[in-house]
């Protein structure tokens, strides 16, 4: 009896420690968000005021009105949204098409072509930075959205992902459509795409997030402020001579998070699938 109670107590203590550990980690994860939000509602003197205020004593919307009125935030958001959605849609189209080609067809040099595709994934972006810029300038694409949409549109990871996904599908439906005289492209549009739409959501979310959060790409290619994306706009709020508009900068950071936060909370399960698909393939 005593022994059983001791065991129970031991288990209870272990559980308590586990919860404390989880709560500690979670607090560290949440803290920067809380402070970002809090700072975005503060007047400059309160931002580094002692003692720290989590809920600002002098609450203000000033930082938000400033970024919308003075910093053209609407335009920035439209730019970011345009680039992210166009690159996501285009990427989804080309990667599903490529994945379908590799999954359901036999053709000469298939193995070699697929190995080549996988090999391109190890090339780090750093190697491409300078020559890509030179090429984009030749094409007249600098300070347009095209360098951020076109080159990544048929990326190897996506094709790899959809090849895995499509190769598990049964051939019967496709064969039936072929008998009915449907063209290969129509089979892809009418039969394959609807079946793989959950996978398209998973990967589309990853594409959208990567594009929305991209910093180095826009930094290299987008020159005029009217073309800026959200990450560039946040970065630009660091003023001259060490002056930083901390309040507006945090307000803009909060805004930059909202779309992804909503998408993430709604599609959490699909999101995790997109993340883990590349890592866990046995």
């Amino acid at each position, binding site marked *: 009896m005593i022994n059983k109670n001791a065991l129970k107590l031991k288990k209870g203590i272990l559980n308590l420690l586990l919860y404390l550990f989880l709560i500690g980690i979670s607090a560290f994860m949440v803290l920067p968000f809380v402070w970002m939000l809090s700072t975005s509602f503060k007047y400059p003197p309160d931002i*580094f005021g002692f003692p720290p205020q989590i809920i600002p004593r002098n609450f203000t919307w000033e930082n938000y009105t400033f970024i919308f009125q003075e910093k053209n935030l609407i335009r920035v958001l439209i730019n970011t949204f345009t680039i992210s959605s166009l690159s996501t849609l285009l990427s989804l189209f080309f990667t599903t098409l490529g994945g379908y080609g590799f999954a359901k067809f*036999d053709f000469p040099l298939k193995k070699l072509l697929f190995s080549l595709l996988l090999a391109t994934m190890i090339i780090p972006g750093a190697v491409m930075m*300078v020559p890509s810029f030179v090429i984009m300038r030749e094409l007249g694409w600098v300070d347009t959205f095209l360098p951020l949409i076109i080159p990544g549109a*048929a990326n190897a990871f996506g094709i790899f992902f959809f090849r895995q996904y499509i190769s598990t599908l049964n051939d019967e439906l496709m064969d039936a459509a072929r008998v009915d005289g449907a063209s290969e492209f129509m089979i892809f549009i009418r039969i394959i795409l609807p079946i793989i739409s959950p996978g398209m959501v998973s990967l589309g979310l990853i594409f959208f997030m990567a594009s929305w959060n991209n910093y180095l790409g826009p930094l290299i290619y987008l020159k005029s402020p009217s073309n800026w994306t959200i990450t560039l706009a946040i970065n630009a709020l660091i003023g001259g001579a060490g002056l930083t508009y901390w309040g507006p900068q*945090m307000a803009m950071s909060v805004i930059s*998070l909202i779309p*992804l936060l909503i998408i993430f909370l709604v599609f959490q399960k699909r999101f995790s699938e997109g993340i883990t698909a590349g890592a866990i393939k046995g």
Partner: protein
Amino acid sequence: MKKARWAYVFISPFYILFAIFGLYPMLLSLYLSLTRWKGVGPMEFAGLVNFGLIPKDRVFWQSMMNGIILFGLYVPILLFLALTLAVILNSGRIKGFRIFRTIIFLPFITNMVAAGFSFRILLEKQNGLFNMLLRIFEIPSVPWLENIWWARISLSLLIIWAWLGYNMVIMLAGLQTIPRDLSEAALVDGATPIQAFFRITVPLMRPVILFCLITSTIGSFGLFAEVTTLTLGGPANATITPLIRIYGVAFSSYQFGYASALAYTFFALIFLLTVFQFRLNREQT
């Protein structure tokens, strides 16, 4: 063989785009690395002069060193924490499992510009939140961003914050592929949970851990926004990364030829490091 022709059409966009925006730039870069070129005006052929300059490029080697130091600072902690959290959340004894997983994953969807500046506010020397909290407990304030080693630690904190959830989710998915009864059987046989963790879970999770290790390796040399927003590469270049060095040579000094030579050297070094990690893993199993 009508079908085969269609397959080539379907896969061709990748190869066309890769030829224009991948292969061609790489070859161009190889050529550029043999020239002196400011990005505009005449290109001057320079042979291997650019590569000859690299051994003496202190900032570049410092940046490679920083990559290794950062790797040593955050990777063991990151992977250990991620695996521990995954095991705890996978154990089935935690209520509110989903809430914890969601919270820990949130930083991953945050852009690093917003994250870096938030950390800079938290770590500010005079009245950043961290130092204010220390002051309440009468602990002297820490020069988070002003001292070489503290700056590296601060950067590691940001990286662990940003990547813990990603690695945890991957490890969780990995754990779901290994049979749960194995560690349970060990526990019944009298092994402590810690023994079961190191003797059973870790070896079975080896491929997943390797995946996380390799992504982290490549990641620690390719940090960019994290550094430019939090530490600006300083103090004394202590947190500058190879990617920032190459960007600076290219787009601040406009030495396109030299930047290309640096980029190729960097690529070769990272490639060797990755192969080395794979080898090390194979030898141990």
